[in-house]
């Protein structure tokens, strides 16, 4: 009985762990897509953030790692913004190229910095922080209130993003830019500047997501370690309907599906493991279909502002 509860608690904690980097990246992508820019380069920003976190933390501790990750993620996103927002080039290709470049760049820098031996498990990490009292709650306590700081930050970001998007002038301008670049411009919004900021902020959060993998989870870096999480974050944005709250739910859902996948495999069934590997994606598809009503993207998503 208590065993069952412990397992459940462990499962919930795993779901939250898996969800955290996805939530960070997806929240960032929500901001950028609300502004009308779809950034497939966040996979690259995440990877760059992961490496920057590793190097930063090796050099100056976890906090330096976090700062370095933010900067690295934002820098790649800035390059992306330069090409796609300012030059008006295609966002899908630009994002793919940024990710490809990030794979190469992180690989080269990693090899140069850590040599052939790699980083091992030498990187200083962020210890989980227990929230007093709350962490004692049975079942949920350990899952939700004994997590690394990045998790709390990711969750706190959800209402903050909501507030920004729906309760501030900047957020309104951002949404306007995403819905109709022409309309926003006519209303006095500086569309390119607005979009650039959103993309860079999104990239910084993706960098932080990468840092979470390194500093709050594995304590090391490996090439291509983000393994497509950036693309999954983009799926989560859609699943969450471009809404911070929805994105939170979708990220947790995805985290839970993935955690469940591992539990299934580890409990040793005869079912081919590949079916479990498909599970999160199939569930996400079902979730998309089951979500009540129609999903609508920001109208000008993917369209550069016309040069005037």
């Amino acid at each position, binding site marked *: 009985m208590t065993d069952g509860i412990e397992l459940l608690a462990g499962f919930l904690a795993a779901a939250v762990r898996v969800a955290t980097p996805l939530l960070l990246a997806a929240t960032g992508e929500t901001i950028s897509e609300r502004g009308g820019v*779809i950034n497939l380069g966040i996979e690259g920003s995440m990877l760059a953030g992961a490496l920057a976190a590793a190097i930063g933390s090796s050099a100056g501790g976890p906090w330096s790692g976090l700062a370095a990750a933010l900067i690295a993620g934002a820098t790649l996103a800035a*390059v992306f913004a330069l*090409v796609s927002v300012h*030059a*008006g*080039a*295609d*966002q*899908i*290709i*630009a994002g*793919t*190229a*940024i990710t*490809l*470049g*990030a*794979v*190469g*760049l*992180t*690989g*080269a820098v990693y*090899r140069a910095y850590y040599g052939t031996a790699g980083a091992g498990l030498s990187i200083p990490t962020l210890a989980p922080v227990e929230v007093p009292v709350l962490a004692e709650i049975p079942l949920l306590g350990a899952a939700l209130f004994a997590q690394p700081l990045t998790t709390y930050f990711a969750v706190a970001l959800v209402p903050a993003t909501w507030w920004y998007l729906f309760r501030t002038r900047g957020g309104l301008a951002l949404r306007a830019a995403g819905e109709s670049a022409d309309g926003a411009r006519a209303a006095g919004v500086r569309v390119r500047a607005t979009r650039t900021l959103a993309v860079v902020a999104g990239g910084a959060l993706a960098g932080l997501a990468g840092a979470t993998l390194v500093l709050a989870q594995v304590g090391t870096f490996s*090439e291509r370690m983000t393994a*497509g999480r950036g*693309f999954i974050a*983009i*799926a989560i944005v*859609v*699943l969450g309907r471009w809404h911070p709250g929805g994105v939170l739910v979708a990220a947790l859902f995805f985290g839970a599906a993935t955690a469940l996948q591992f539990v299934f495999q580890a409990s040793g069934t005869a079912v*081919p493991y*590949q*079916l479990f*590997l*498909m599970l*999160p*994606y*199939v569930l*996400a*598809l079902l979730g*998309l*279909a089951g*979500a009540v009503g*129609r*999903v*609508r*993207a*920001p*109208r000008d*998503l*993917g*369209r*550069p502002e*016309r*040069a005037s």
Partner: protein
Amino acid sequence: MNARPGRGRVVAPLLIVAASLAGLAGVLAIAGYDPVLALGALWRGSLGSFDAFASGTLVRATPLILIALGFALALRGGMLNIGAEGQFLAGAMAAAWLGVHLAGWPSLLAIPATWVVAFAAGLIWVVVPVVLRVRYGVLEVISTLLLNFVAEALVSFMVQGPLQERSGIYPQSDPIADAARLPLLPGTRLHLGIVLAILLAAALWFYFSRTLGGFRLLAVGTGPRAAAITGRIDVTRTAALALLVSGGIAGLAGAAEVGGVAYALYPNLSPGYGFTAIAVALLARLHPGAIIVTGVLFGALETGAGAMQRDAGIPAVIVYVVEAVIILALLLADARRTARSPAVAGAA
């Protein structure tokens, strides 16, 4: 301007590409590599000799061109199919499945048969996104993307399970029958797939530019409301059909890769052709003829990248950076021609 096939100039883009290559040479030199050697290898390994061109560049270009053609077809109708990777794998699975059973068939039947099943498999792989889009309004961008991951897992399952080779040890299928293998250009690795790609490009070019159906597809993609009200076009049906066929074409690419290159199903059949092909199609502004050119360009880039590693000792990771810079440069050059892209035209 819009999703129209482009009528842009070529000179400025070429200048930008040249400038960025010069910049690259500088960066390589700073990083301690011999830029002349590196760029020389890039050239020699891709376009510098007939063998490199035929056996390397064109072989790599074939799946890119095919997938890009399908992508262009769908996007012309406003559907953004970023799941070609999955459809490609579906086609490859089907072609391998049939291909191993065709011993004794005449090639004239065996090859078309694998193409038909692969087309069907790719098409079936997009049925779910189409139904989700039509019935539930789920954006095909996302459903096709998610299905890529499912396809990967499915291939992994197939090569360990139903399609695994006879000895049951290796995660790959049995080799397909000789009859199902595509004929090669003698002395090279260039296979019949390139002919398929060129014929399909010609057919799509004709369809896009000379037929009412091709125009109506464009209308659906650029102005769905006007297409429905003024053009009296069944917008949903038209777009759905385009997406289905684009899936089928990606499936064909899978068949060509199995029948012309790999001769068996392997899990690592695609290095992300589905994504590279998007760049191929968009840079070509969805124009079928231009897709052949951009497809060859990207094929050359990927083949040349190998040569840079082999012949100039440049590590793969640096080569990725080089590729990324070249793509971004092409993109910037291209963006100067026109300011608008159709990227998510079907989103609303």
